[in-house]
């Protein structure tokens, strides 16, 4: 058992529909295995939280990153202002994914 960190993962803008209709997850991960946001997305979220990955993977992931139309926020900041997939996770980070809305 390594060094565990607690992360809040959120799915907004209707994205909760592929995560068991739950908008917010409090997760505890092994920080020796899950170091970057890339690790969290591919080793944890896509495996543990995504419902029916065989149908829903492409709604979440495209071309080895988060699919276009989904914004990723690290502690309420656009991940493009951080290091995107290479961002190094900290204890108590809030990672939010929000689908872009188009209706009006």
């Amino acid at each position, binding site marked *: 058992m390594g060094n565990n960190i607690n992360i809040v993962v959120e799915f*907004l*803008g*209707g994205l909760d529909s592929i995560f068991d209709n739950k*908008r917010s997850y409090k997760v505890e991960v092994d920080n020796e295995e899950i170091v970057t946001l890339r690790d969290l997305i591919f080793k944890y979220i896509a495996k543990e939280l995504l419902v*029916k990955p065989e*149908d829903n993977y*492409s*709604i979440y992931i*495209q071309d080895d990153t988060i*699919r*276009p*139309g*989904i*914004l990723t*926020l690290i502690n*309420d*900041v*656009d991940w*493009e*202002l951080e290091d995107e997939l290479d961002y190094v996770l900290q204890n108590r980070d809030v990672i*939010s994914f*929000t*689908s*872009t*809305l*188009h*209706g*009006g």
Partner: protein
Amino acid sequence: MSDSLTTEEVSRYGRQMIVQGLSTNNPIDQQLLLKNSKIVLIGAGGLSSPCLAYLAGAGVGTIGIIDDDVVENSNLHRQIIHSTSKRGMLKCESAKKFINDLNPNVIVKTFAVRLNNENAFDILDQFDVILDCTDTPITRYLSSDVAVILGKTLISASGVNTEGQLTVLNFENIGPCYRCFHPKPPPPHAVSSCSANGVIGACIGLVGVMQAVETLKVLQKIYTKENFEPFMLQYNGFMDQSLRRFKMRGRREDCISCGSKAKNKITREMIENSEINYFEFCGSRDYNVLADDERITVQEFEDKYWKDKKPKEDIVYLDVRPAHHYSISNFNNEKFHNVPLAELKSFKNDWTKLKSKMPELEPTSEVVVFCRHGNESRLATRVLKDDFGIKNTKDVIGGFFKYIDDVDPSLPKY
């Protein structure tokens, strides 16, 4: 340009003019900023309704409204500037009537067109600030590109279900544009709309009100080049109401619309001669998966499969709408099976699963397939034919709503 307020205007706007602490300007100058402003709203629906009502009330001098739709019954739960007596009227004309009643000082310009590559520049250039209240990524990219080229601030709002988003784009020609946030469009299957996915009127309305607040800050120069920071607001109505403010990136240097270092940047000419094709860029879901002889019209359905409003013994009737849609309105006959398309697809050749939903179904069965508008039923027909080999499957063109329109208007549409 007006440099004074009438007595009537001072009494009308007095309560907002005496609010302190928003600006160092004197109150009359602040109000004149609104009076001398020209704004245009793209769309006159759920966002625009409360937004333009508050902006007209606040004394924005000129308001343009672009919308070619007419008021329908299904709009009224959220598009509250329209009314039951205005059903069938152009939304832009209905909106104009509302504004004139509320505040006759406002000059209203209506455009009963859909914003497109050809008309966007001529229309939007008549105004100072653009409000995007539309419902497709196609118009969102178009309005952003045009706003950048014309050097105008774009206040962009959207919403569906219980959620909404709001951002200020190309602020004073230094802020990020829509393409900076979204260089690649979402795949068409991931785009949801109010008509397909539903919307709570009060939730989209609240986002429209917030859009009005942001517009006031832009028009009254409370946001400045010095203090403006790119952001996106995310509202959610249920269960606990929440409003989040996300700090967003600035301009993308390589943005093909606004980037300072981009090569081959988008020009007015490229948009006007349709070299930039927004429909192609955003794509659309391909429902065109059937040949003509795999489909029947609603009248053929009525004559051949639903004579005297009764089902035929040896026919299998399938409706692939989501269950909560089906429960609102259907043929009210137990011969009909409701198996949503997503569920049907998940069976993947498994006859046991399929039979558990439709026990009488055999490979030789004759099946008729409905959905809401006749799109998903085509995909479902393909599934039954290709995955299960049920050759005699027929798609009903235009779906349940077309049946209601053409054959039986006594059934409710939603």
